[in-house]
């Protein structure tokens, strides 16, 4: 009996002494400043947070909360820890991962940020969080004529949604032009030129939310690539051939009524203010054999400027794009192999290439990157800084017997911030390169042997 009580006491003591990392209520945000940039159709928000640990246990991580609509449209979340003062500030990247919490109110979505070292009780840390939202500007009116300007809604909260108590916060919203039709006013809120200031708000409880709608003019090009398939073909004989298939749309207010070419060309500043007719693609520096064509044929309205650090291809579709209009085209180019294929220290070869879409300021709804490895490659694997869907396919191309392995990487909701290098590793024995010339040599030899057989075989019926 005494032994049982003793065991029970020991078990309870063990449970109580396990160092528990703090729950959500042990952190507090002392100061938060949010800057939302609405200049283009990709919404960028910069959060500067000063987090304090008011609990008794060290905190290893914190949670960032997003409303259900924002979680669906979030393209990227990055966090940096700021150390040092004024001139000697250093920024260290932090690990950010999406996470689910069991007791989330109203389907809130979360991202977990892991600190570099656990935050002790009473300590503060400064963080800078960048998050990017796509498809968050809703055109209103939904349809506009050629001579109207494009107005959009932006839905957000004046108070930062957070699972922690926020002592002081301010939000600055930057619009592309001074024309703001209306904005929800949650005291104190005021507008000066292109900036709307919400705040400062004091002592808001956790999960407080004050929805605001800002109705403003945004004529920046709403270039949305619905589907992009990039095929990178590696040839060990010296080049990398990249072929990109685009399906481009204008993602803003839909165009209604007629399109008048006369109005468009004579009153260009008024007519088609939200339309765009030229796009810029940033290509690698030593690029050659660039082509721009579609199903009809070659499109000649393009300019290529090669440079030392990058090349720029400025191209125009066959017609300007208004809201809801589509253009499909193919861009292809070749780059030298030695810029992108390397040998790792363990003997494997790897391709180091840039992920994402070469077009500037465009959202890609569905991006597929296919890396075609040469015949005879084994054990392919891809290394990326973010999650993608991976699979393997087989492609039959010139002089192929068994086919080439294709590593397919697929990602949704891609923004220009995703243009970071990624690697694809594989093993390859150089002797396999001789398979192609050997096939050609044996084909020619077969022709010679056939002619020899023809000369030697005696088809006479009469005996000599």
């Amino acid at each position, binding site marked *: 009996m005494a032994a049982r009580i003793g065991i029970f006491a020991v078990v309870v003591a063990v449970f109580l002494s396990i160092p528990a990392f703090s729950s959500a209520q042990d952190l507090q945000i002392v100061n938060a400043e949010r800057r939302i940039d609405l200049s283009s159709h990709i919404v960028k928000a910069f959060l500067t947070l000063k987090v304090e640990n008011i609990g008794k246990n060290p905190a290893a991580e914190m949670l960032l909360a997003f409303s259900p609509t924002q979680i669906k449209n979030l393209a990227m979340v990055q966090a940096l820890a700021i150390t040092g003062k004024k001139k000697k500030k250093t920024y260290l990247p932090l690990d950010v991962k999406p996470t689910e919490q069991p007791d989330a109110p109203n389907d809130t979505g979360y991202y977990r940020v892991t600190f570099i070292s656990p935050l002790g009780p009473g300590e503060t840390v400064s963080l800078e969080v960048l998050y990017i939202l796509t498809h968050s500007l809703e055109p209103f009116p939904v349809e506009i004529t050629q001579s109207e300007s494009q107005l959009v809604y932006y839905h957000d909260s004046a108070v930062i949604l957070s699972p922690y108590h926020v002592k002081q916060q301010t939000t600055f919203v930057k619009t592309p032009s001074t024309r703001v039709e209306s904005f929800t006013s949650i005291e104190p809120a005021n507008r000066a030129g292109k900036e709307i200031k919400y705040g400062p708000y004091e002592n808001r409880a956790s999960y407080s939310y004050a929805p605001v709608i800002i109705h403003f003019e945004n004529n920046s090009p709403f270039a949305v690539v619905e589907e992009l398939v990039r095929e990178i*073909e590696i*040839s*060990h*004989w*010296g*080049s990398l*051939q990249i072929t990109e298939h685009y399906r481009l749309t204008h993602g803003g207010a839909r165009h209604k009524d007629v399109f008048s070419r006369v109005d468009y060309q004579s009153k260009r500043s008024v007519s088609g203010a939200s339309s765009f007719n030229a796009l810029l693609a940033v290509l690698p520096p030593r690029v050659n*054999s660039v082509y721009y064509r579609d199903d009809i044929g070659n499109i000649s309205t393009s300019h290529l400027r090669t440079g030392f650090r990058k090349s720029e291809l400025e191209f125009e579709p066959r017609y300007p794009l208004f809201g809801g209009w589509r253009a499909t085209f193919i861009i292809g180019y*070749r780059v*030298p*192999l*030695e*810029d992108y*294929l*390397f*040998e*790792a*220290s363990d003997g494997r*070869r790897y391709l*180091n290439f840039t992920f994402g879409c070469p077009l500037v300021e465009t959202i890609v709804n569905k991006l597929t990157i296919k890396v075609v490895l040469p015949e005879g490659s084994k054990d392919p694997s891809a290394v990326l800084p973010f999650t993608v869907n991976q699979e393997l396919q087989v492609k039959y*191309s*010139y*002089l192929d017997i068994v086919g080439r392995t294709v590593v397919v990487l697929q990602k949704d909701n891609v923004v220009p911030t995703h243009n970071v290098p990624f690697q694809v590793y594989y093993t390859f024995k*150089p002797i396999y*390169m001789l398979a*192609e*010339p*050997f096939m*050609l*040599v*044996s*084909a*020619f*030899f077969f*022709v*010679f*042997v056939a*002619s*020899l057989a023809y*000369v*030697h075989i005696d088809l006479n019926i009469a005996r000599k």
Partner: protein
Amino acid sequence: MAAKPIASPIPVALYPTLSVFTLAIGLVITAIFFIYETTSSRKNRSLGKELATSAVASVFLGFGSLFLLLASGVYV
């Protein structure tokens, strides 16, 4: 981090020149083979000589056509 760039075993700028020379040599040896076929009689023909000539000719022609494909942009 030993990041050694991998390049083609033969410099890419040499592909057009190499293709012209290897194809030329291959065609010359093909000519030698067919001249041997037509000028020798059935008794004097030596199968070893024929096979050797055709093997050398097919090697040169094979590599020549590979370099021709590479030089014209079909990176096989």
